[in-house]
């Protein structure tokens, strides 16, 4: 009788299959993903992968060809606009599907569907920020004009044409590892992607909550000194001395502003848990023909964003009878975002302007159904959000929409607040919620022939505020800071505002023509690097989270440079000059008491004494400066800021630098927690000794070279969930306040240089590769070049060059 052994072995088999079909090791069954016929092994792309193909689709109107060069950059030639965006969608999906899917799901607050319960707070915050609401409003604008709608439809159809023919065996690796399926594309997902950019660039550029708490600690004149609107060291984009027009709108401060607003001492606990990195900044500059060797303008741009694999950017050339454009595209959106065509080039940096305000709402009761506004109870619109959770039950969140916007914080949600006693109902008024179609700006820029076309293209761009820089082959150079910016009375929107009537609402917007701009300045160059765009004579109150040092450093070089070549511009984009350090280090060295220092400490001091103020990868002076300066700022501010148990805005490094240089007896130097009064000598010396302890640790753990502390890294989109898929700890220098702004996993996400000579000469590089497949040799093949400051020539291909040896593969698209 062999029944017993049969049962045992059959049970073992079933047991094995059950275990291997479970998600004990990874989110996906081990047996499923390791099956070499359909699992992750299938994503190992052949080193000799042949990308040639002949494809036909019923959606196409005509024929088209895609020529891949040896870097896998597609040069797309189509007979009409709709076809080109269909193919752009198809190629984005073919090479970057997971990224598009993940980013738009995250934008909408659906990350929990992928990551499970750990993403619930993220999703709640996205929904409370009204991300989907913003995208819905945007979609209405995008689809208003049938011609425009057809282009978005074409893009969507292109993405879906790729998804439809995708079998599970060919899913991108991440889908297999996470055990999820690709989701069909829709036009609203394109809108969501652009709103993701709006959040990244304009939802952290205000400090209303932190400012509200600061108001409780500091006196009004202290607030002005610690959080100045215009820093002394500011070098604005629009040169000082420029005369501005009389403002068309003069907003009126409410009569009760002092009592209800400026002198309101109420604290706030709420703290955004996923506030975007304030250093989502960028550099762009353009030098006119008078300053270049060729006599033609050179335009440069490097947007600083979170660096990831795959990169946020995908390089393309798009050619139709109406346009021939090359540059960085955003997978998830049609058009080229930063690039050049046969007539001109353009680039963007972030405006850093505050376009989001908080209003305190008084609800009638806990149901949030009614709120007090203009002397009566108004019905709020309740939006019930279902957050689906992978491997768990759905979470429901009720969000009240008021006349201002969604109530982001209330009794049920206060972000990552550590104390709940100061919970307040806060509605947000955010420009990103207003109906607008940012994508059409890029459609038109892609086709711009001259300055007027450029200006017409950017006029409709509302959010996030961007500094659009421009140069044309006819020799024009220009910059406009463009968005829909609220016209504020002085002080409006720095703190939480009363929301019980309309008196504190925005009274209008700054007319587009009054946005800061400059064209063909005599000095021959224009730059922007997230600083305040204008000096204090600009007639509007424009708060923001401005970043000053990079703009100063760029001006420092461009002012004196002449006969500029593209090579000079490459060097400038990779420059490591630390201008803040050069300003503050003399003060530090003057006041440090060397008699109190031990031998090892003196050695560290020596590094900084001999330092050339360059934040190179191998610089030890930069490391000493960085740690010392950080400790000194903490010595000065931490005791004061910790008077509040809530989140308080930290004064910027530049402001602290300016205050110390101006006044070495600054009252904040004193540590309020000690009975004696500390002087600058004590502050500088004590902070140096604290820094030296940390430096000794760094030295013991690998060395003091700046690259080892700065840790320039490019992580896979899923970060630590995908060890081995990232490129951590590159040998690079930089910092947020350095032109080459690499810091940790943040920095120049695309470096572009375009010389507008008769035949365009352009260069570019980004820290990634064209393929999103980690199993492709094109996954991260640009990273080393990027780290070394090297560039690739950007090839604006002619259709006649189809037989060029640079063409590695061809996909022919046909109407079926």
């Amino acid at each position, binding site marked *: 009788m062999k029944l017993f*052994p*049969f049962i045992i072995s059959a049970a073992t088999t079933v047991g094995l299959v059950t275990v291997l079909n479970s998600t004990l090791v990874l989110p996906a*069954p081990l047996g499923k993903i390791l*099956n070499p016929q359909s699992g992750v092994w299938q994503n190992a792309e*052949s080193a000799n992968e042949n990308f040639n193909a002949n494809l036909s689709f019923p959606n196409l109107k005509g024929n088209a060809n895609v020529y891949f060069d040896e870097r896998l950059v597609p040069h797309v030639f189509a007979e009409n606009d709709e076809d080109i965006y269909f193919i752009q969608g198809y190629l984005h999906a073919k090479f970057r599907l997971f990224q598009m899917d993940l980013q738009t799901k995250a934008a909408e607050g659906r990350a929990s569907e992928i990551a499970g319960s750990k993403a619930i707070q993220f999703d709640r915050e996205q929904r409370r920020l009204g991300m989907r609401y913003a995208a819905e409003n945007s979609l209405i604008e995008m689809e208003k004009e049938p011609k425009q709608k057809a282009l978005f439809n074409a893009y969507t159809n292109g993405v879906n044409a790729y998804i439809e023919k995708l079998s599970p065996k060919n899913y991108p690796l991440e889908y297999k590892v996470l055990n999820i399926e690709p989701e069909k594309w829709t036009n609203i997902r394109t809108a969501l992607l652009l709103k993701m950019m709006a959040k990244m660039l304009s939802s952290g550029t205000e400090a209303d909550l932190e400012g509200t708490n600061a108001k409780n600690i500091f006196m009004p004149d202290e607030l002005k000194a610690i959080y100045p609107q215009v820093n002394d060291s500011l070098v604005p984009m629009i040169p000082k001395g420029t005369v501005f027009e009389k403002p068309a709108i003069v907003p009126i401060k409410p009569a009760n502003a002092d009592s209800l607003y400026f002198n309101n001492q109420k604290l706030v606990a709420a703290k955004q848990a996923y506030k975007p990195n304030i250093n989502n900044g960028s550099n762009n500059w353009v030098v006119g023909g008078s300053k270049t060797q060729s006599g033609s303008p050179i335009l440069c741009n490097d947007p600083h964003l979170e660096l990831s694999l795959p990169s946020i950017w995908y390089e393309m050339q798009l050619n139709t009878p109406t346009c021939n454009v090359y540059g960085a595209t955003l997978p998830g959106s049609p058009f080229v975002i930063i690039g050049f065509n046969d007539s001109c080039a353009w680039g963007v940096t972030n405006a850093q302007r505050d376009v989001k305000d908080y209003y305190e709402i008084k609800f009638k009761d806990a149901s949030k159904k009614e709120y007090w506004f203009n002397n009566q109870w108004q019905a709020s619109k309740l939006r019930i959000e279902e957050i689906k959770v992978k491997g768990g039950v759905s979470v429901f969140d009720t969000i009240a929409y008021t006349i201002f916007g969604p109530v982001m914080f209330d009794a049920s949600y206060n972000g990552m607040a550590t104390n709940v006693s100061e919970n307040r109902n806060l509605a947000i008024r955010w420009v990103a919620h207003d109906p607008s179609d940012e994508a059409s700006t890029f459609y038109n820029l892609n086709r711009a022939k001259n300055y007027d076309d450029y200006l017409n293209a950017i006029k409709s761009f509302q959010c996030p505020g961007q500094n659009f820089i421009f140069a044309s082959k006819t020799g024009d150079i220009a910059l406009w800071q463009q968005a829909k910016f609220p016209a504020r009375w002085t002080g409006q929107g720095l703190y939480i505002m009363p929301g019980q009537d309309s008196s504190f609402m925005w009274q209008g917007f700054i007319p587009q023509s009054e946005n800061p701009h400059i064209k063909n300045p005599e000095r021959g160059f224009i730059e922007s690097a997230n600083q305040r765009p204008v000096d204090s004579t600009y007639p509007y109150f424009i708060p923001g989270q401005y970043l000053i040092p990079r703009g100063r450093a760029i001006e420092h070089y461009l002012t004196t440079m002449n006969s500029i070549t593209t090579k000079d511009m490459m060097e400038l984009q990779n420059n490591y000059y630390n201008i803040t350090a050069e300003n503050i280090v003399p003060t530090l060295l003057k006041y440090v008491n060397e008699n109190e220092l031990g031998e090892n400490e003196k050695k560290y001091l020596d590094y900084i004494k001999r330092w050339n103020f360059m934040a190179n990868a191998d610089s030890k002076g930069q490391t000493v400066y960085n740690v010392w300066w950080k400790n000194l700022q903490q010595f000065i501010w931490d005791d004061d800021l910790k008077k509040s148990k809530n989140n308080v805005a930290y004064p910027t490094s530049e402001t602290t630098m300016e205050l110390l240089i101006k006044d070495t007896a600054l009252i904040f130097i004193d540590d309020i927690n000690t009975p004696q009064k500390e002087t600058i000598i004590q502050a500088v010396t004590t902070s140096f000794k604290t820094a030296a302890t940390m430096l000794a640790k760094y030295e013991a753990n690998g060395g003091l070279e700046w690259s080892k502390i700065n840790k320039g890294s490019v992580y896979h989109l899923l970060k630590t969930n995908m060890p*081995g898929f990232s490129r951590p700890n590159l040998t690079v220098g930089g910092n947020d306040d350095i032109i080459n702004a690499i810091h940790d996993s943040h920095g120049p996400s695309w470096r572009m240089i375009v010389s507008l000579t008769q035949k365009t000469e352009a260069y570019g590089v980004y820290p990634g590769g064209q393929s999103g497949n980690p199993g492709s040799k094109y996954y991260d093949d640009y990273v080393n070049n990027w780290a070394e400051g090297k560039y690739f020539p950007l090839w604006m291909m002619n259709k006649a060059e189809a037989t060029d040896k640079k063409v590695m593969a061809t996909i022919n698209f046909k109407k079926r």
Partner: protein
Amino acid sequence: MKFFTSILLTALLSFAACLYLPWWSIALVAFMVAALIPQKPGKAFLTAFIALFIFWFALCFFLSSANNNVLVHKLSILIIKMDNPYLLMTVTALIGALVAGFAGLSGSYLRRSK
């Protein structure tokens, strides 16, 4: 002869089954082959084990080589927490081999219990 026929048949049918069915269809294949081709239980286990071990290992090896081993390093760090391509191939092959082996054993016992 039965020994080699079983190995070949199990490998071939596993390949065919996995084109359309989930990965664990290799268990059904190994079970059926062992139930149809009479072998001692030990040999039934062994033939199914060998069939899948060789087939899966070879396929991984082939795919990885064509890829210049770009992906397998990353995968091994992700899945077995160490940079060891051959160990990952072995682990993969073992998964197939063990499942098929026990299924083959069951098939053999079933035939004998009749």
